[in-house]
């Protein structure tokens, strides 16, 4: 299966800007389906970005984060060609991991 994580990490020399887009329903548990039944909550709880063996950014998310979540941040350091590891885990225990090259 293709990865659910799309990442663009761009180094400007001093800092690396990271933008990530993840495919996930992020169901809040408050929305009803066509039959009027509540769709149970299903959302990413933790999203981690690691560079050089250390986490550079950790997102703790609740169900109020939009569907197919987007996040942007920057960290000092990071060289072109280096790896950035991204992983998430949701409230049902599902997870995904990918590695992106810094551009």
């Amino acid at each position, binding site marked *: 299966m293709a990865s659910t994580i799309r990442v663009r990490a761009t180094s400007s020399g001093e800092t690396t800007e990271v933008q990530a887009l993840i495919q996930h329903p992020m169901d809040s548990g408050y929305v009803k389906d066509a039959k009027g039944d509540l769709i149970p909550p299903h959302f990413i709880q933790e999203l981690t970005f690691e560079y050089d063996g250390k986490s550079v950014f950790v997102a703790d998310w609740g169900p*109020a984060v*939009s569907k197919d979540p987007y996040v942007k941040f920057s960290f000092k350091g990071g060289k072109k060609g280096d790896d950035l590891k991204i992983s998430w885990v949701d409230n049902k225990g599902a997870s995904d991991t990918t590695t992106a090259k810094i551009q």
Partner: protein
Amino acid sequence: MTITLDGFPATRRLILKGAGAVALFGFGGFSLGSALAGANDKYPEDAFKQKSDADAIKSLYGKTAEVSDKVKLDAPEIAENGAVVPISVSSTLADVTSISILVSENPNALAASYRIPAGTLPSVANRLKMAKTTNVIAIVEAGGKLYSASKEVKVTVGGCGG
């Protein structure tokens, strides 16, 4: 649990407890340190369950925030679609360790909380759902203290009712 009178199993339990404590300290030293640093340990399950913004902040950080112009909250005046509201938070404060975003009148106020390790810039952009017109609150934890900024966002179509 059974009550023992001869004392032997109790002693054994004590020894095991002691060994457990040593193991905990041995492996847990690092996580213990970061737990003391505030919200920087694990997924804050309870904070996300709180209904009001004040309770969520208290559960997450155990203290209250003071309003600061060094916290910059970017959110639209009017959000046409409450399901996708672009919100970004940045700060000029030093030693920022976390940034949290709350939507006051969502069913659960806390929307997202970001841990900012040393070397990561205190700036984050994301997209959140908003049930209705309400205040968005940005909390920045810097040097162990909390600073906040808030802004009302008008929502024309709510993002929680479907």
